[in-house]
C-alpha cells in the first residue's frame, strides 16, 4: 500500500520546492505525493505523481483542458461545481479525482452523483486543509459536509482520496495524523488508510479482462 498525499502545491504556488516536499513527505512516512504541475519522478524514495488541476465552471472547457494538457501518468483533478456540472464531470473520461467538494452546496453531490462516481471509478477528494486551518463555523460547515459525504459513501462505496493541499512543508501531515483527522467525520481508520492508497490505484485502473494473442 502506497500512502499518498493526493494534492500538494509546490513552487511557484507554494513556498517549497517539489523535492523538499518529497523529502518531508518521506520523513513523515508518506510514499508518494501528487504534486501540482510537477514532473513525474522519484526523490528520496518518494514517488512524485504530477497533477493537472482544472478549475473551470464550464464542462466543455474542462474537456478541452483534459485534451490539451492531460498526459499519461498525470492525475487529473477537477474542482467540483453545481449538481449538473458534477454529474457531467463524473461521466467524463479522463477525470480521476473530483476535489473541493467542501466548497460546494450540500446538494451539489447527491446520491445520483455518488452512484455515478462508483460506476465510473472517479474518486472524491477529502481536503484536510480547512480542518487544520479553519476555526469555528467554517470548520463546522466542512465537517458537516464530510459527514454527509461519508454517509453517501457507506451506501455507494465510491473511492476517496485524502489531501492536505499543502502549500508549505509546514502544512504537510503524516498518514497517521491524516487518518486521525478523518475520525472527526466518522471515516474509519481502515477506510482512511485505503483512501491514502487511492491515487496510485487511479493511475492503474482495473480494466476488463482482454484476450491477448
Amino acid at each position, binding site marked *: 500500500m502506497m500512502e499518498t498525499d493526493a494534492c500538494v502545491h509546490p513552487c511557484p504556488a507554494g513556498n517549497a*520546492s517539489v*523535492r*523538499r516536499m518529497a523529502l518531508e513527505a518521506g520523513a513523515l512516512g508518506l510514499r508518494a505525493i501528487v504534486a501540482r504541475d510537477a514532473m513525474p519522478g*522519484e526523490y528520496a524514495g518518494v514517488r512524485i505523481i504530477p497533477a493537472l488541476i482544472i478549475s473551470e465552471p464550464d464542462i466543455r472547457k474542462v474537456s478541452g483542458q483534459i485534451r490539451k494538457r492531460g498526459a499519461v*501518468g498525470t492525475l487529473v483533478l477537477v474542482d467540483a461545481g453545481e449538481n449538473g456540472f458534477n454529474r457531467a464531470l463524473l461521466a467524463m473520461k479522463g477525470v480521476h479525482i473530483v476535489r473541493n467538494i467542501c466548497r460546494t452546496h450540500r446538494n451539489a453531490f447527491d446520491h445520483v452523483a455518488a452512484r455515478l462516481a462508483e460506476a465510473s471509478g472517479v474518486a472524491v477528494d477529502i481536503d484536510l486543509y480547512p*480542518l*487544520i*486551518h479553519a476555526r469555528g463555523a467554517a470548520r463546522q460547515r466542512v465537517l458537516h459536509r464530510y459527514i454527509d459525504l461519508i454517509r453517501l459513501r457507506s451506501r455507494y462505496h465510491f473511492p476517496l482520496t485524502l489531501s492536505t493541499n499543502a502549500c*508549505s512543508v509546514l*502544512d504537510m501531515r503524516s498518514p497517521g495524523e491524516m487518518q486521525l483527522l478523518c475520525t472527526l467525520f466518522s471515516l474509519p481508520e481502515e477506510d482512511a488508510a485505503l483512501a491514502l492508497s487511492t491515487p496510485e490505484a487511479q493511475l492503474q485502473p482495473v480494466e476488463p479482462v482482454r484476450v491477448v494473442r
Partner: protein
Amino acid sequence: MKARPPTLREKKRYILASIWPPEPEPEPDPKELYGAVLEAVTSLFGDAATARIRPVVISCETGYVLLRCSRGCEKQFRIALATLTSVGERRIVLHPKATSGTLLALRRKIPPALPSLEGEDGGVQYQGKEWSARRYHGQKVDLLEKGIKGQAPLYITQDDIEERSCSHRHTRWDTTGQ
C-alpha cells in the same frame, strides 16, 4: 497535605512531539505553546472535552516538546495537535512521535541526533535573488530573503541550489517506471 495513594490518582499519558521548524529560535516559549495547544484543543472539541483531556505542556527541549493528557484521551489530543499551525506569530507544526505512560520512558525515546544545524550560510543566490540560508543535515535548506523583514521563507533542497547554479548538471531525477 498527604498525597493520594497511587490507585486513586488520575492516570495520565505523555506524548513526545517534534517541533518543526526548529529555527529561528531553538524552541518556543512553553507558556505561548501551552496557549496555542489549549486553543487548538478547545476550538476543536470544546470546553467540556478539553476539561477531560487536560492538555499540559511539560517541557520544550531542543526540537522536541513533552506534553501530557488524561489517559484515554490521547487520540483526541493527537487530533487536536494536528490542527496546531502557529504559536504567536511563528508558524509551527508539532508531529507526535511517541506516547507513553511514564515520562522516563518517553525521555529515553528522544533521539540523540536532533534535527541539528550544520550552520548558517552568509548568502545564497537562488532565482536571481540573494537569500540567507540555513542548512540541515541531509538535503534540507531553508532560505530567507535578505534585507526585508518578515519575508516568507522558501523551503528547498541542496539539489535545487546545485541545479540552479549549474544548469548542465545531471539531476538526480529518475523517470517513473524505469
